[in-house]
């Protein structure tokens, strides 16, 4: 047991180290002079050199790398080239919006998808099953931003039910409840669209797993023992499914970050995803590096957590030598 955990943790740390190196190299190799983007090209060479010195860009690469690792591990990401404010401060103001957006929509789509997937598996060949199969295929082939743009066009431009852009009205309404209502009104369409895009895949996945499990011998045995249907489905089939579902849930967390970038761009939300896009296109090394590091940290810790949870819920995994195979 201890060996399994140590092995997984070690490999997570190794990957995190590699990510650090990659992260550093990636942004130092970007084209475009970062200093050029924040100062006037007519500045004297002395002024440019001075700015390079302030941002530490004149030091040799190994020194830059060492400084980078030290500051990254202490969550001090420096000052954004574009906004001139500490990156951490920028991220902190954006993080709640992104967490709300992704958390709510993922939870919604997972719950709805699981419920519909179970129903579809129990009623093979029904109309509901066909709908689920198609919605899965659609969610794999329709570009998310297209669906969101269409929703925006329909429910914000043509029928002005929801706001066209932003996280809050400008100026924001006074009073706690009014502010909350305004926030929810702005977040409704993004959250709903993400949930809509996500549930098809979930339903398809749960359905496929459930169909497989329902065909297993132990379900046949449970039926032969005359157990009630509800008991068989929830107590036996779903219980077997649960560890896998939990893992998938955790593993899908980093993947939906792409969803954040797209959604926040489409709906012009004040979030981390759009910050990342602006940082990448604006040669804002500290900001982009910080976003990347946090993303990688999120991914690696989710992977680790899912491995460990799987080890807890499924005893067969930790008995096996050599981890997953």
């Amino acid at each position: 047991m201890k060996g399994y955990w140590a092995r997984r943790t070690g490999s997570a740390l190794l990957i995190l180290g590699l990510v650090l190196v990659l992260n550093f190299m990636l942004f130092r190799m970007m084209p475009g002079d970062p200093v050029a983007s924040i100062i006037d090209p007519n500045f004297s060479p002395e002024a440019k050199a001075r700015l390079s010195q302030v941002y530490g860009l004149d030091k040799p690469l190994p020194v830059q790398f060492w400084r980078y690792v030290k500051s990254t591990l202490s969550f001090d990401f420096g000052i954004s080239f574009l906004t001139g404010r500490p990156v951490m401060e920028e991220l902190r103001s954006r993080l709640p919006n992104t967490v709300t957006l992704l958390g709510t929509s993922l939870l919604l789509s997972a719950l709805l998808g699981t419920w519909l997937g179970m129903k579809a598996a129990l009623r093979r060949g029904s109309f509901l099953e066909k709908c689920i199969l198609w919605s899965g295929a659609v969610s794999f082939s329709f570009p998310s931003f297209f669906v969101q743009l269409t929703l925006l066009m329909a429910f914000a431009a043509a029928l002005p039910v929801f706001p066209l852009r932003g996280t809050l009205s400008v100026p924001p309404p006074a009073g706690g409840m009014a502010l909350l209502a305004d926030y929810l009104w702005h977040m409704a369409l993004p959250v709903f669209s993400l949930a809509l895009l996500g549930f098809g895949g979930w339903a398809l996945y749960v359905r496929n797993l459930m169909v497989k499990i329902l065909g297993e011998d132990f379900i046949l045995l449970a039926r032969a023992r005359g157990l009630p249907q509800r008991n068989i489905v929830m107590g036996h089939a779903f219980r077997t499914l649960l560890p896998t579902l939990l893992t998938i849930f955790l593993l899908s967390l980093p993947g939906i970050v792409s969803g954040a970038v797209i959604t926040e761009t489409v709906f012009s939300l004040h979030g981390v995803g759009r910050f990342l896009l602006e940082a990448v296109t604006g040669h804002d090394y500290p900001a982009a590096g910080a976003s990347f590091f946090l993303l990688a940290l999120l991914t690696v810790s989710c992977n680790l957590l899912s491995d460990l949870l799987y080890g807890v819920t499924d005893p067969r995994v930790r008995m096996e030598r050599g981890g997953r195979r």
Partner: protein
Amino acid sequence: MKALLNRWSFWCLLAIILLALFGAGLFDGPPEREVASAFSKPLWLDRTLPPGMELRLGQSAPAAELDWNHGAPAGFSVKISGGESNPDRYVRWTTPDGKSFNLSPLRRGAEVDGRDISFKRSLGLPPFGDAAAALFPAKGAYRAEITGEGDWEGEVVIRMEGGRWGLLGTDQRGRDIAALFVAGIRVSLLVGIFATLIATFLGATLGLAAGYLGGWVDAVIMRGVDLLLSIPLLPILMALAALWGKGLWQLILILSVFSWMGSARTIRALTLSLRDAQYIEDLRGIGAPSGYILRRHLLPETLPVLLASMTLGVPGAILSEAWLSFLGLSDPRVISWGRMLHEAQSFGAFTAGAWWMLLPPGLGIALLCLVFLDLGKYLEERIDPRLRGGTAP
């Protein structure tokens, strides 16, 4: 083979490829050409809108009457060509309610547009909006004529932009969306097919090596797979697209470098199971070199699986290209479906209510992805007949 001919996706793909190859011939001029006013609706959408119209004035016909039965046109412009400049003569425009405007002196090569501020100031109109609204206040008979002193040889073209154009309307620059749509097929097909080809080649090579050779080769390759799988794909693609430049081939390379992991895993698993098969053992026993076994026996065994996983991988590449273009990280000179959606979002399709800019590229991407998903499913069923009979669409 006959089953393939019964698949809708096969015929659909064929039609799409034909359109990509020969579609440009359906339109006269390149797709970048501006054909009508911005945000023109599709022809079939709104029959009450005015059509595009031109009035030509010259020495032989110095005046023209126009019977106008619509609201104001979407655009209004005057173009003067030929002849010597004669500032004493000008184009006069008379509306049905008796007002008249001096549109422009006859200066050689002069061009005025209803949106020009100086033009609106010269007519005594406020500098906002389009002059067309003031020049077309009502339905009825309009008159355009050349007036003033002196001789003049040349031609004046007064152009009224209609609010509707073509099969699919126009975009924010007045380009034909149908032509852009057809031009965009090429990028999606190219990126989708080549990126997955390269990725599958990489994945097959590394997967075969990892599975057959085992040991440290296997360990290194599989750690690499783990690493690449643990980085969120879109952010890294964004960074690389900004880093390596925005060309189409760079994009294809970037996409393939980050999508070989799936096929590598599949092929490795398959190779692991084949490696210890009796006939491979026998081959090794009679002294066949590894390269020979890999090339002549293992690769052909894995080929059908590779083909299916490749076909199923194409939608991913198409979608990734669309993502990047949508985020504005593609070459702005290359027309692609993602780029069209990017422009729809950034250049005011929403305020103009121009949904016809949105649907064609979006549905195009979705259709192409569905086609490849269906073909991939067909191939999988051929390999493994147990999948037949409705497990997944």
